[in-house]
């Protein structure tokens, strides 16, 4: 159906929702609204994100988000590179969670090319994904505290403490892959690096430290009176709207929708490791924090289970796919979605075209972009201070939103 402005207005009025498409001409001309360009050069826009806020005093009347300041043509680049060359490129998409980027891309290629992954490699990928989720949520908590408390105050204390623990996870990854960021450890059909000797003990000791400190962070955030005042009832996203907008991950689960691809469409080792999906009611910044704290604990549990139950065996197929000529697809199209720390990261690939060693078309579905699309609905009525909190609570990573 053609979505004209009139039908959209009608539909939103029916649901009692903010209409983000309402023209500025529809607002009272005498209200003397102030247009504030919020970003892209702003300390709290999580990278280069821009919102145009129409303010009545400090109250936001209309919010218009703009993305694209970090567009790097990753999808086009992927269409020009061969299948085996692409993992380092997508590492930088969601630059807080490179492991899951690699995993999503590699899984799509494996499905397209019909390559089997050994059981040990699947378990290792699951271990990496859960460790990465811990690191990513820690970084989110720190930056959210920065949004609420400022870089020159209590927020930065929590921020640096979270970074200290995140470092433990990065050390583990460095031990396996030699890199702290550009892991490039996922191969089509398996993994490039095996776990080093004594790795299980190191994982356990790092996770024990992280777990013991989560309680401290709860005191500084969830149980703190000022944090509750700033987050309760702020930026309420109802579950129905979230589903319509395609919001996934912790943001969706905080709105009371019980959806997690790890349980609903198991991949990796999740068919053998049961995932307890964490949800919360309310859909506000507080609920989103609660969900992420729950997921921190759940991911620690899953990572422990993964390292304890790590099966023996090869980490890669009989003949590792490293040469461009080894990976060819003349036709076919696949979509693979996985649950990253931010939600459903989907990869859609069409094989074939002029060069069978490259994808004909590649499209990435970033969860951050869909989370940002909720902003024009939930920002109006909030203050500028709330806008910072709401934006931070959605955990957007502009690297993957803009690609």
């Amino acid at each position, binding site marked *: 159906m053609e979505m004209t402005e009139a039908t959209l207005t009608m539909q939103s009025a029916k649901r009692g929702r903010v209409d983000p498409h309402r023209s500025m001409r529809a607002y009272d001309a005498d209200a003397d609204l*102030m247009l*504030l360009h919020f970003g892209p050069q*702003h*300390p*709290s826009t999580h990278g280069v994100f821009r919102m145009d806020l129409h303010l009545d*005093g*400090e109250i936001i009347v209309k919010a218009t988000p703009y993305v694209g300041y970090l567009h790097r043509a990753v999808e086009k680049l992927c269409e020009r590179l061969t299948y085996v060359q692409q993992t380092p490129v997508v590492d930088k998409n969601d630059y807080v969670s490179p492991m899951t980027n690699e995993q999503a891309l590699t899984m799509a290629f494996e499905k397209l090319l019909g390559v089997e992954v050994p059981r040990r490699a699947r378990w290792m990928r699951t271990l990496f994904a859960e460790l990465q989720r811990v690191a990513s949520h820690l970084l989110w908590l720190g930056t959210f*505290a*920065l*949004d*609420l*408390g*400022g*870089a*020159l*105050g*209590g*927020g*930065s*204390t929590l921020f*640096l*403490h979270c970074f*200290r623990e995140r470092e433990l996870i990065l050390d583990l990854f460095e031990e396996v892959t030699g890199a702290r960021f550009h892991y490039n450890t996922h191969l089509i059909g398996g993994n490039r690096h095996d776990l080093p000797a004594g790795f299980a003990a190191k994982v356990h000791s790092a996770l024990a430290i992280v777990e013991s400190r989560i309680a401290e962070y709860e005191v*500084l955030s969830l149980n*703190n009176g*000022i*944090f509750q*005042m*700033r987050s309760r009832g702020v930026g309420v996203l109802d579950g129905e709207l979230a589903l319509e907008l395609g919001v996934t991950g912790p943001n969706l689960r905080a709105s009371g929708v019980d959806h997690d691809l790890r349980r609903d469409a198991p991949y990796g080792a999740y068919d053998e490791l049961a995932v307890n999906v964490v949800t919360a009611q309310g859909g506000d910044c507080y609920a989103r924090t609660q969900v992420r704290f729950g997921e921190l604990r759940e991911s620690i549990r899953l990572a422990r289970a993964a390292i304890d139950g790590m099966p023996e065996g090869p980490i890669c197929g009989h003949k590792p796919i490293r040469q461009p000529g080894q990976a060819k697809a003349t036709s076919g199209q696949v979509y693979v979605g996985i649950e990253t720390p931010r939600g459903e990261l989907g990869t859609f690939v069409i094989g074939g075209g002029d060069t069978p060693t490259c994808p004909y078309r590649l499209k990435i579905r970033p969860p951050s972009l869909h989370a940002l699309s909720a902003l024009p609905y939930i920002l109006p009525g909030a*203050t*500028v*201070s*709330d*806008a*910072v909190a709401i934006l931070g609570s959605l955990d957007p990573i502009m690297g993957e939103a803009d690609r």
Partner: protein
Amino acid sequence: MSALGHGALYGAVLIAVMLSTVAVGIWFERKFAGRMQSRLGPTIVGPMGLLQPLADVVKLLQKEDIIPAGADRALFNLAPVLATIFSLGVAAVLPLSPHMIAADLDIGVVYMLAVGGLMVVPTFMAGWASNNKFALLGGMRAVAQSISYGVPLVLAVLVPVILSGSLSLAGIVRWQSEHHWFALWPVIPGLPAFALYFMAMLAEANRIPFDIPEAESELVAGVTTEYTGAKFTLFYLAEYVHTLVGSAIGAALFFGGWDGPFAPGLHWMVAKTLALFVVVYWVRWTLLRLRSDQLMELCWKWLTPIGVALVLIAAAWVQFAPQGAL
């Protein structure tokens, strides 16, 4: 010595002392914050990084002085100067020891509140003159906040004034050294009045959790967004001096100022001031920031009624307490 000569001499000494204390205070805060955040703080410049504030100032003074296009140049240039003058001006009535007061005014408390209350003027001037929307929002917030928090501040300060029957800061300290510190006795109006004073002082000095006019995660840098170089340095300095003077006045009004055993009065006054100064840092590096409407709610729904109640209790205490109970 004439009164003018006395004032000029002590004033010059006081300004020098305040500025060097602020320099050491900045170093201390950075070390303190570093330890709280499991890092080292400054270590490179000078022994233990002690010369870091000097390096900061040299760096800031070297920066290009930018006046934004469309700014009100006169107000823009005047605001940081006025901020520094007002924040240092309050220090004139500080009773450092029985004999070290730059200006022992009979109405020192009124002077302190009046000059301290003027701090909002340069802040709003800066917000208005910068021709920047973030600065303007910061200025708006600053006006609302400072004027609102002036009320509980005055009410909190009235408690020691009523109990001691003096409007002179030195008089209040003298009364406390003869009787009790107000934070210790009478506990009911004394200690809560100190808590009220401390919160209002944090709000007046724009310190976390009330640093809403600056709010760098929301308003970039609030009123100081467009300021660079020397002018920014002056704002920075004024903010620190304001906090330091606020701590000193808190020590004088509620903790007996120079009163203490064994050591000279000056030492006690400095020790108490710095202890309060550290608490300000401690709060700053622990708590998150309130929203401006929540700040107003806190002020008008809680602090102001509590302040009125404390003043009434203090008045009733003076009126009805048995002889010698004070």
